[in-house]
């Protein structure tokens, strides 16, 4: 059973995705801010990281940068979950090692679950890198 870490500060959205992913059979843990997310990443192994970018304190990109600098060989799949439309920010996420991104407002929870499954089975997930 794949283990997923969701880092999302909006409670409604965090509850929505974690409940749907649990129903789909994943083990899911939630962090509501960047620092907590980073701490959890350092103490546990996850197969996939669903990472919001706009987070209080440490933002998603800073978290990813920090994690990757300490774990350059990590095989954990990273999907950016964001409502930001700015390509430069998303491109930076890809440069830091994300495999895909999803604009939250454009995906139903079912579709998010499907993208997670795609990503874990090595298929391309979400919207491609806008910077390529």
């Amino acid at each position, binding site marked *: 059973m794949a283990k997923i870490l969701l880092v999302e500060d909006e409670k409604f959205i965090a509850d929505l995705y974690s409940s*749907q992913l649990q129903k789909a059979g994943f083990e899911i843990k939630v962090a509501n801010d960047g620092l907590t997310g980073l701490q959890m990443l350092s103490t546990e192994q996850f197969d996939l990281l669903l990472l919001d970018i706009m987070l209080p304190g440490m933002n998603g990109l800073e978290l990813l940068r920090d994690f990757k600098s300490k774990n350059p060989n990590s095989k954990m799949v990273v999907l950016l979950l964001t409502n*930001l*439309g700015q390509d430069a920010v998303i491109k930076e996420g890809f440069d830091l090692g994300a495999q895909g991104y999803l604009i939250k407002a454009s995906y*139903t929870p079912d579709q998010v679950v499907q993208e997670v499954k795609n990503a874990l089975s090595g298929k391309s997930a979400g919207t*491609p890198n806008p910077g390529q």
Partner: protein
Amino acid sequence: MPNFLKRFRSELPWKLSAVVFILSLAATLLTSVINFNIIYWPLLPIPILVSLIGAFLISIILKPLDQLAVSPQIQPTPKLSADTHRLEIIVSSLLDGIIVLNKQKGVVLANKVAEKLTGYIASQMVGHSLDTLIILQDKEGNRITSEQLCPATSIPTSQLYSSKDPLTLIGNNRSTTHVRLNCSAINSPEEDLGYIISLEDASSEKQLEAIQLDFVSMASHELRTPLTSIRGYMSVFINENKDKLTKEQTEQLQRIQVSSDQLAAIIDNLLSVSKVERGAFALTAQKTDWNQLLTKVVEDNKLQASSKNISLNLESAEELPQISIDPVRITEVLNNLIGNAINYTKEGGRIDVSSKVDSGELITSVKDTGAGIPSEAIPHLFTKFFRVQGALDSSSNSKGTGLGLYISKSIIDLHKGRIWVESEVGKGSTFSFALPLSWHLPNYQPE
């Protein structure tokens, strides 16, 4: 002490002693010859002794000259020390950090702001090579040495380096700050005056750069957040309860879904227009299966069409090719054209989507049985904020911000394609766009 005075001071006694020695030797020899008719050599110690005593006496006489040498020969005039003082005040009052390097890149001077930015006090820096004191890194983390900043040059007062982006400066005790930096060569033969580095504190700029968001992006993000919850929970609720709901309840919920879908599309449009305006609309080219893309888009719009009892059909044509396009943006165009068709077509109407290859182009059409567009409105259709009014007021739902066609045209133009409309009032409209099959996007840099 002036050089000539130094030389004079050190060489004079010996010159005088030599003169005294020669004179006394000559006198002794002469006396010996005159009195004794021979050179009486045992008399030689006498001139030696005399010249030694003479040298000793001369040193004592010249001692006052030393005092003169120690005290400054050239007294600074009161005006010159006032000027120096003023310059010192000016340099220390600059808002920029100033570091002066000698020709070997050693620090000669550093002002207060430079002290603050580097974490050293000036006296800790003076006499040391700049590279041993601080580390400068560019955006990518590559080190920039003082040699790269200030390459040896014979061109005086030339600007040698100017940072485009803020650099990271790691100073004393690994303190880190961000600076903009310029280096120029000083016009002087003096060893001490090699280069001048000016540093500007860029830390607030860096913070803004961390997540560079313009107002529209922030507003879009804020609007999308509650919308995510609305669409998300609505979707889950309907999935989990569709067997328990009456037909009427299902329809009501679907209308909420459709409305929130439209809201999402409007926000997408606002964001896109903002990018178009800023010239920051980035495209990502991908080999795309056109059939697959078209099928998905039509599927996604079925709910909205059926809520108005409009039949939305895809005429699957002959084998359609793979095409190099930005699939996300072209999907946006299709959603916009189909969405417009739904908006401007009455209940029970019909929308047909079709695609074909013709003369090296992939031509896609969205044909509706809507109200049609008056010919005078057609030239303005693809401009910003234009919505057809007049005869259409009664039938149109006045939805949309009028941005959709403007954005669609921008996207098609970027793909080097064409977009146009054929319409007749009362019969309907056909919006078409052509994408060149041979086009390959030169990869853009996003904003």
